[in-house]
C-alpha cells in the first residue's frame, strides 16, 4: 500500500528538483539519495578495453547463446566485438549496460540491441522491428533500412538509420535522438514525450499523432499531421542542433536545414508539466 502522506522533510535530492507529490489515488515518489551514488552500479557490467578486439560467428547459435557469448567476451575485457553472420536473428545484443564497440556484419531481426545503456553499435545491414527499444544511452548506427517501431520508448542516446524506417518510429520516445537518412512510415513520433526525431526524407500519415512533447524535424514531404501535432518555426538553435547532430550521424550534409519542417505538440497535456518541469526537460 503506497504511503499517501506528504513527506515534509527536504532532502538533497528534492532540492535538486526531485519531488514527491500527493495525487488523488496515487503517489509519485522518487527514491534516490545522491550520497549513495558511488555505491550504485549496474549488475552485469564490465570494464572493457576498446583496443581488445575479437570476432564471434553466430551463424549456428540461437539468440540466447549468442548473447551469452557476447557477455562472456565482455567479462574477458573485450571492448570491440565483431559479430559475423547475424542473419536476421532476433534479440541480438540486448541488455548491454557498459561501454562497448559492437559491430554486426549483417542484419538483425526483431528487438535488436534493445535496453542498452552505453555501447556504440554499428549494424552493417538492416534491422527488424523495435530496434534499440528502451535504449538509455550510447550510439547505434544502422547502415541500411529499419523496420517499424524504430527506437520505441528510447530514453537517451543517438539512434541513426541511414536508410528508411517503417511505421511508428520513435513511438513513446522519452528522450535522445532518432535520425533517419531516408523516408519514414506512418505514425512517426506517435505519443512521443521528449527528445527529437529527424527524418531527412518523406514521412507518412499521422505524423506526431498524440505527441505530448519533443520535436520532430522533416526534410521531405509529410503525409499528414496527426492529432495534436503542429508546425513550429525553425530557430537558429534548431539549425545549430541539427548541424551538430547530422555531423555526428555522418548524413545529410547536402540538406538545407533552414527548409526543414519542425513539428511540435500543439496541446499541453493535463498535469504533464507539473510532473516533468519544463526546465528539467530542457536539460536532456
Amino acid at each position: 500500500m503506497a504511503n499517501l502522506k506528504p513527506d515534509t522533510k527536504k532532502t538533497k535530492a528534492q532540492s535538486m528538483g526531485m519531488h514527491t507529490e500527493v495525487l488523488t489515488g496515487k503517489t509519485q515518489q522518487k527514491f534516490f539519495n545522491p550520497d549513495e551514488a558511488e555505491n550504485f552500479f549496474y549488475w552485469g557490467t564490465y570494464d572493457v578495453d576498446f583496443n581488445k578486439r575479437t570476432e564471434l560467428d553466430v551463424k549456428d547459435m540461437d539468440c540466447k547463446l549468442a548473447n551469452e557469448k557476447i557477455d562472456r567476451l565482455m567479462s574477458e575485457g573485450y571492448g570491440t566485438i565483431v559479430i559475423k553472420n547475424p542473419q536476421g536473428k532476433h534479440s541480438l545484443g540486448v541488455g548491454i549496460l557498459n561501454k562497448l564497440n559492437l559491430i554486426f556484419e549483417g542484419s538483425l531481426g526483431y528487438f535488436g540491441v534493445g535496453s542498452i545503456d552505453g555501447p556504440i553499435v554499428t549494424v552493417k545491414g538492416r534491422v527488424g522491428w523495435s530496434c534499440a527499444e528502451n535504449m538509455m544511452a550510447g550510439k547505434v548506427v544502422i547502415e541500411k533500412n529499419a523496420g517499424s517501431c524504430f527506437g520505441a520508448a528510447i530514453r537517451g542516446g543517438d539512434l541513426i538509420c541511414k536508410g528508411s524506417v517503417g511505421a511508428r518510429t520513435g513511438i513513446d520516445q522519452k528522450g535522445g535522438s532518432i535520425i533517419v537518412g531516408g523516408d519514414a512510415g506512418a505514425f512517426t513520433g506517435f505519443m512521443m514525450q521528449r527528445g527529437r526525431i529527424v527524418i531527412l526524407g518523406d514521412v507518412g500519415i499521422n505524423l506526431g499523432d498524440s505527441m505530448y512533447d519533443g520535436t520532430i524535424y522533416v526534410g521531405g514531404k509529410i503525409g499528414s499531421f496527426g492529432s495534436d501535432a503542429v508546425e513550429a518555426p525553425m530557430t537558429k538553435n534548431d539549425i545549430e542542433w541539427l548541424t551538430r547532430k547530422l555531423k555526428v550521424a555522418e548524413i545529410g550534409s547536402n540538406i538545407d536545414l533552414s527548409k526543414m519542417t519542425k513539428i511540435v505538440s500543439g496541446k499541453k497535456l493535463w498535469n504533464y508539466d507539473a510532473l516533468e518541469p519544463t526546465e528539467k526537460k530542457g536539460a536532456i
Partner: protein
Amino acid sequence: MCGIAGLIHRGKTSNVGKELQDMLQALKHRGPDSTGYALYANNDGQNFIMRFKVGENVGEGSTSVNEDESVYDERKKLVNQKLSDLGASIVKEEKLTPYSYRYEIKFDKDLMDFSKAIESIESVEILSIGKSLELIKDLGDATAVSERYGLSKVQGTHGIGHARMATESGVDIKSAHPFWGYPFADVSVVHNGQLTNYWNNRRVLENKGMRFMSECDSELIAVFLAEKMRNGATLEEGMKQSLTGLDGVFTYFVATKDSLGMAKDTMAAKPLVLYESDDLVAMGSEEIAIRSILPQEIDTYDPFDGEVKVWQI
C-alpha cells in the same frame, strides 16, 4: 500471430516446394497449428487440378469431430458421380491422405456452378482449382505437411504459404490458409492479422452469391478480391480497394498463375520484410524466413503502410 511467406522467380523455375518449406519452417514459432502452401507448379496447363477434402484431419490437436473413415469413401464416390453429371472427366486420381484428394480433370464450363455442385456434398470442400495452382494445407508444421504431401520436390515459379496460430476459429483444415479465390482458377490468399468488419462484408458478399467455407476472417480477403475481379477489376485494383474495404490490421499475399502481390493495411500494424532482385522476390513476416533461402548478405526493407505491390513471373 501467424507467419506468412511468399516468393516468385522471374524468368525461371525453381524448387519452390522446398524453398517455401524452409521459409515457413523458419516461421514456425509464429504459428504451430497448421501450415498451408499454394504452389504454382510446372503442370502442362491442359487440365484443371482440383484439390479437395472429404473430411478433416482429426489428429494433431484438431478441434474437429472424429468421423468413421468409411464416410470419406462414400463422399469421394459422390464427388466422382457429380463430376460425371457435370460433364467433367477424371484424367488422374490421387488419394493423398484418408481425407484429401488431388484430381486432374477435363472441364470447360463455369467453375462457380461446378464448385457449388461439388460442395453440395456434405463436408466436401474444394481447396483449389487451377491449371498450375497446387494448394495444400493440413495440421502440423511446414516440414510435417511437406513430408505428408511430398512437396519438397515441387518445381515451379512462385508460391505463398502460411504458418497458422489459430485464434478466432478452430484448429482444422477448413480454417487453415491459403484460401482459394473461389471461383477463380489459380487464385490463392494468405493473411496475417485480424479483420474487424468480417461479418458486415460476409453478409454483403453472400448476398452477391459468393461462398464462405469457414468462419476464419482471412477467408474474407480471398472472397473480397474474387468478387472485385468477378466485376472486372484487375488483381491490383481489387487489392487497392481492399485497403479501405477491409477494416482491421493485415498484411496479405495473393497469387495468381502468373503473379504475386502483397498489401499492407494503412496502420502498418503487421510485419513484412521484402527482398527484391531482378530474378527473385522473397518476402515473409520475419527476415529469418528470407534468410533460410538466402543466407548471404542481402538488402531487405519493410514496405510502408497502405502499400500494394504486384510482381509478374
